[in-house]
């Protein structure tokens, strides 16, 4: 019988049942277990059963006091000398507001909803409504349309700003006004040049000139803009081959496959990997593309609390213990595959996945690990290789390395990297490679140029400088914000900086005031964040200069003073922060 080993690829495991040994264990116990499986008070009873007999289901006991130590021990063994790196996790913060501000936020939200409903009753929206549909259910979700018309509409001017330039360190916004409280907009014809704190341009590669743009233009002259076919037909050109080779080399794995769109990379490849008998353990703040992919695959989903390794272990243990929740006859059947889904940097929280612990857990429970590095690739790590580099882990420990080229690379598309076998499996089975047009060649060329710069293949250390500049900007900005006294979420090294403002009105006021002062930021509220945690999100870039950051910080401090954003009760660093002498232990 084949059993699963750590270094086996997904393809090998596809036809092998993932839990052979566990199955055996279970069959040993079926006789005794039968009584309680048919009993109605199942959970309680099985608990007693456990305690009384000290035996286990699906290969695991639910209570084990030494788990923590075991995990720590394993971690030390895995990382060896790199035990120091664990310190990095400590610098992550999710400071809670005071009870009073939470209370006020909830009350004001009720006021807002109350006004919304009254406003809707008195002034029904002048939009198409459903008539004469007796007996039909509503085609549109009532709450969603209410929310977008009577809450979001009022502050709609803070979003969907059209831009008229490349989103580099600065971006030009097209100005507009609304004569009727957000129902319609008119362009004024004027433009406003702002410091760009809103684009995912981490390494500053969103440029309209320079070596990357030139290579893209050259490729457009050679291959045109579209391949006009899927990768499996006539869609593979030299640039795609080169791109995949470079990506794999950059990440330190055997092979990689690329797709034309990052979102589709997640949502169309996950169904090729998982089936309904599989279990997915997903972080609660995972991106929509991951959630869509997981739903499409039909696998059972269990969610663990954001970035909480203990909760992840609890969920894993419980899920493995109880097995599949299917019909009575084959209840507690082991899962075919178990896969943990995490992101490198979470785009709304600014937190970094606790990769070493997660890898230790994954090895302990023989689960697969799917790591989405959309925001982290290029943005953190000594040589820009994402969280794997940041923690000094082995990229081969991660079964599926996914990432996108939209952020740090200033291009478009996504990749999946892993073992050769696994990538060849995807090449055949993935919907995104079978049924979607290949990546546009100039887009691929831009990525190739960026990768070469990052790897130093162009003979300069421009790439290194950019990575250091981003790390420096991040440190400087985050520490200055902490001095100002606003609550920021996430890891100290993450270039995504959410500033908590809690109230919609405060988002609106700050976004509008910042734009008036020529700073473009993004406000985020429900449903992109939990209801009471509206925030202002700032994305730093290697392209920002110290002067730009200083100016932005000055204005942010002014706004924070004006509207009371200084919620933080953490001790403040009294010493001024010197940009030039920052320590970059990224």
């Amino acid at each position: 019988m084949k059993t699963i080993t750590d270094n086996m690829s997904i393809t090998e495991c596809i036809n092998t049942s993932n839990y052979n040994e566990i199955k055996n264990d279970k069959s040993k116990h079926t006789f005794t277990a039968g009584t309680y499986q048919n009993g109605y008070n199942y959970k309680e009873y099985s608990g007693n059963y456990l305690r009384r007999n000290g035996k286990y289901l699906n290969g695991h006991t639910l209570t084990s006091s030494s788990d923590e130590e075991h995990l720590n021990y394993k971690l030390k063994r895995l990382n060896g000398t790199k035990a120091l790196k664990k310190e990095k996790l400590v610098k992550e913060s999710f400071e809670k507001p005071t009870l009073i501000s939470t209370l006020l936020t909830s009350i004001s939200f009720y006021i807002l909803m109350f006004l919304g409903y009254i406003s809707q009753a008195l002034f029904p929206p002048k939009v198409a409504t459903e008539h004469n549909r007796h007996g039909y259910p509503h085609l549109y979700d009532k709450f969603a349309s209410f929310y977008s018309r009577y809450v979001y509409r009022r502050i709609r001017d803070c979003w969907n700003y059209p831009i008229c330039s490349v989103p580099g360190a600065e971006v030009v916004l097209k100005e507009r006004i609304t004569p009727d409280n957000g129902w319609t907009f008119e362009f004024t014809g004027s433009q406003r040049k702002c410091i760009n704190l809103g684009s995912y341009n981490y390494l500053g590669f969103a440029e309209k000139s320079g070596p990357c743009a030139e290579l893209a233009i050259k490729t457009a002259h050679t291959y045109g803009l579209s391949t006009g076919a899927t990768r499996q037909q006539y869609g593979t050109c030299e640039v795609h081959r080169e791109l995949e080779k470079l990506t794999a080399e950059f990440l330190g794995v055997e092979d990689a496959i690329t797709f034309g769109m990052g979102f589709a990379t997640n949502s169309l490849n996950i169904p090729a990997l998982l089936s309904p008998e599989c279990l997915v353990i997903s972080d609660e703040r995972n991106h929509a593309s991951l959630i869509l992919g997981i739903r499409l695959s039909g696998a059972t989903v269990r969610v663990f609390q954001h970035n909480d390794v203990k909760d992840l272990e609890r969920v894993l243990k419980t899920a493995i213990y109880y097995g599949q929740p299917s019909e009575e006859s084959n209840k507690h059947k082991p899962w075919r595959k178990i896969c943990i889904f995490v992101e490198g940097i979470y785009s709304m929280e600014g937190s970094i996945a606790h990769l070493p612990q997660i890898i230790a857990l994954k090895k302990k429970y023989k689960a697969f690990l799917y790591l989405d590095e959309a925001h982290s690739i290029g943005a953190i790590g000594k040589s820009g290789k994402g969280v794997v580099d940041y923690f000094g882990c082995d990229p081969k420990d991660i079964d599926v390395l996914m990432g996108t080229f939209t952020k740090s690379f200033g291009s478009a598309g996504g990749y999946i990297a892993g073992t050769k076998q696994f990538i060849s499996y995807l090449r055949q089975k993935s919907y995104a490679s079978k049924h979607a047009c290949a990546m546009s060649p100039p887009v691929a060329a831009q990525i190739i140029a960026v990768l070469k710069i990052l790897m130093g293949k162009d003979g300069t250390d421009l790439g290194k400088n950019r990575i250091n500049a981003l790390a420096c900007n991040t440190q400087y900005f985050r520490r200055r914000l902490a001095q100002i006294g606003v609550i920021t979420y996430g890891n100290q090294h993450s270039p995504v900086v959410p500033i908590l403002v809690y109230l919609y009105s405060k988002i609106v006021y700050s976004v509008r005031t910042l734009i008036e002062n020529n700073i473009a930021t993004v406000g985020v509220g429900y449903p992109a964040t939990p209801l009471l945690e509206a925030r202002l999100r700032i994305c730093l870039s290697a392209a920002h200069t110290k002067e730009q950051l200083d100016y932005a910080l000055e204005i942010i401090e002014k706004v924070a003073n004006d509207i009371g954003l200084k919620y933080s009760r953490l001790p403040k660093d009294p010493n001024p922060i010197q940009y030039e002498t920052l320590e970059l232990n990224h």
Partner: protein
Amino acid sequence: MLQELLKFINYWYFRYLLITELYMVEKWERVMIHIVLLIIFTIIGLFNWIVVLGAIGYFVGPVINDNIKRQVMYS
């Protein structure tokens, strides 16, 4: 002096608008919520004045000085 006071009131009115989310709604809605809040707080105040203080007075003797009461009633 007066200007300082006006500035102070304006600023805290603005903070009040922010904290109640009234900053982002239309004028008539603002006025409505002002009135609703005013009514709620008046009722709470009256309740405290009459019922709570009355009840306490029942147990510990008159809380409100009769003189004050008379003044309030006849003024």
